């Protein structure tokens, strides 16, 4: 009996080794405020001269695809990732084996597509427990930015941006293509200052439903992503 147990353990061990023996290619996201790493609950000043603290930043990235210079393409299966600034490991996504090929492009969606949005109860990063799900109007929140600014004449000066919606004409998912030119890990910055450079916090500080404003802010959120 014990002998068999050891055999099983040994096999598991081999399995582990095997799984780790290949380095993976990562897509690493870095959340920044004007090129400095964004820290939660720290004060920043926007180009509009608003003083801002961010208390939560979360967003979905889905359908990651890597195009190599040799025209081959890697598409990640079941590709849905919740990036959460409060959980640094969520910002590093190992997606495939490392190869020696030159990467030319990475494409992904900011948010969740309509098929996934209507697919019922899902798990993992798409588990509604993650707090990125609207119940009364089914659907995922693609991006959440919450915090405070004295420019918001709201309760506790709070701002809340929950950007989402999958029904036409208010589908707030945005496709992003980023050109790359290297072999190893891909680094992508998400610059929150780009968002606050354009939003007038005095008037726009609480967006919690799909619609026109969510669409405009989704366009803006797409400008936040760039390659370093």
């Amino acid at each position: 009996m014990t002998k068999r147990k050891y055999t099983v353990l040994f096999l598991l061990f081999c399995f582990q080794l095997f799984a780790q023996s290949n380095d993976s290619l990562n897509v690493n996201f870095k959340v920044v405020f004007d090129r400095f790493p964004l820290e939660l609950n720290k004060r920043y000043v926007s180009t509009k001269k608003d003083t801002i603290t961010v208390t939560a930043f979360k967003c979905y990235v889905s359908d990651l695809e890597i195009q190599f210079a040799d025209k081959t393409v890697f598409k990640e299966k079941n590709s849905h990732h919740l990036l959460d600034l409060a959980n640094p490991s969520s910002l590093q996504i190992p997606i495939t084996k490392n190869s020696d090929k030159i990467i030319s492009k990475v494409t992904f969606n900011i948010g969740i597509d309509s098929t996934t949005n209507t697919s019922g109860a899902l798990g993992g990063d798409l588990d509604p427990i993650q707090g990125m799900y609207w119940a009364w109007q089914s659907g995922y929140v693609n991006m959440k930015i919450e915090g405070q600014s004295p420019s918001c004449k709201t309760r506790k000066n709070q701002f809340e941006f929950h950007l989402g919606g999958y029904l036409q004409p208010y589908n707030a998912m945005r496709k992003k293509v980023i050109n790359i030119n290297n072999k190893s890990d891909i680094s992508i910055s998400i610059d929150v200052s780009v968002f606050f450079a354009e939003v007038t916090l005095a008037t726009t500080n609480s967006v919690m439903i799909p619609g026109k404003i969510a669409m405009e802010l989704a366009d803006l959120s797409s400008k936040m992503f760039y390659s370093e």
Partner: protein
Amino acid sequence: MKRAILILGFGGVVFGILAFSKSYFTPLYFEVPKSWPQPEYDFKKNPLSEEKFQLGRHLFYDPILSRDNSISCSSCHAQATGFTHVDHDLSHGIEGKKGTRNSLALINLAWNKDFHWDGGVNNLEVQPINPITNPVEMDEKLEHVVAKLQQSSKYRNLFAKAYGDEKVTSQRLLKALAQFTVSLKSTNSKYDQVMRGETSFDAQEQNGYVLFKKHCASCHTEPLFNSDKFERNGLAVDTALNDLGRIKITGRKEDHLRFKIPTLRNIQFTKPYMHDGRFKTLNEVIKHYNSLGHDKSLPKELAKPMNLSDNERVDMEVFLNTLTDKTFLFNPRFQFPRE
């Protein structure tokens, strides 16, 4: 290379065990009556089994889903009344708090495309997140429910039976609840028996049926007596509630005051009626429809007066009563699980 073979072998054994354990589940077959449309619900993504159905049934009747363990789904959805809230115009939830809408009957949900009066919910599986997290219904957090169930030996056991291991996740919980609610099928009313040629309508019922087909069936479409569409049926806005219906979801002007076209199956028992429960009897409902005809902006079926006589109104109600399905309302499989 050798290692790879070993691993493959090991994988094979694991797979074998999984496949074997799977055979303990008792598959259920969802029968679709002849000449009915195909269900909307995607059974392939949640294949029915007796064990998952029973887990869902326990969950449906268990107040553990609410913050203070006082309210279960069945508090607002009671079987004897077609799984709707007995005699309440607006549903009551936790600590007696009042909601803003009349509870919906849970009947033949497998054929529904959208859920709730405004169609805001797009899949039966995610619907329970609403009552569970709504502050005036069950006021609980989904992660909390998962933790409470994980602590309960009864549920660890039921989850293990349903899924092969004791792990509780929101996905497993929601899929099991959907297995129960999707199975609430009513297909054996007198109307169905007549359609199957097993019996026939009496003269009054037959006359009511003819009137129904003329005035009502374009919206309350046979055989389900509902529709995927959202419509205005001439109800004046209740200014205290100010519920504008479908427009809240789509933001489209034409959806102003449009609501789901609900099923009329078991309508005799699902009172009160309409999204705010404003009518207590079918007589009032039919009177309402009969009073329309002066508002050109209503759907064309309701834009002209129906001019139903007193007798015709009675016949129509008599027909609606043929949609009552006692085998559904008293089906022991859908009752509170005793044991």
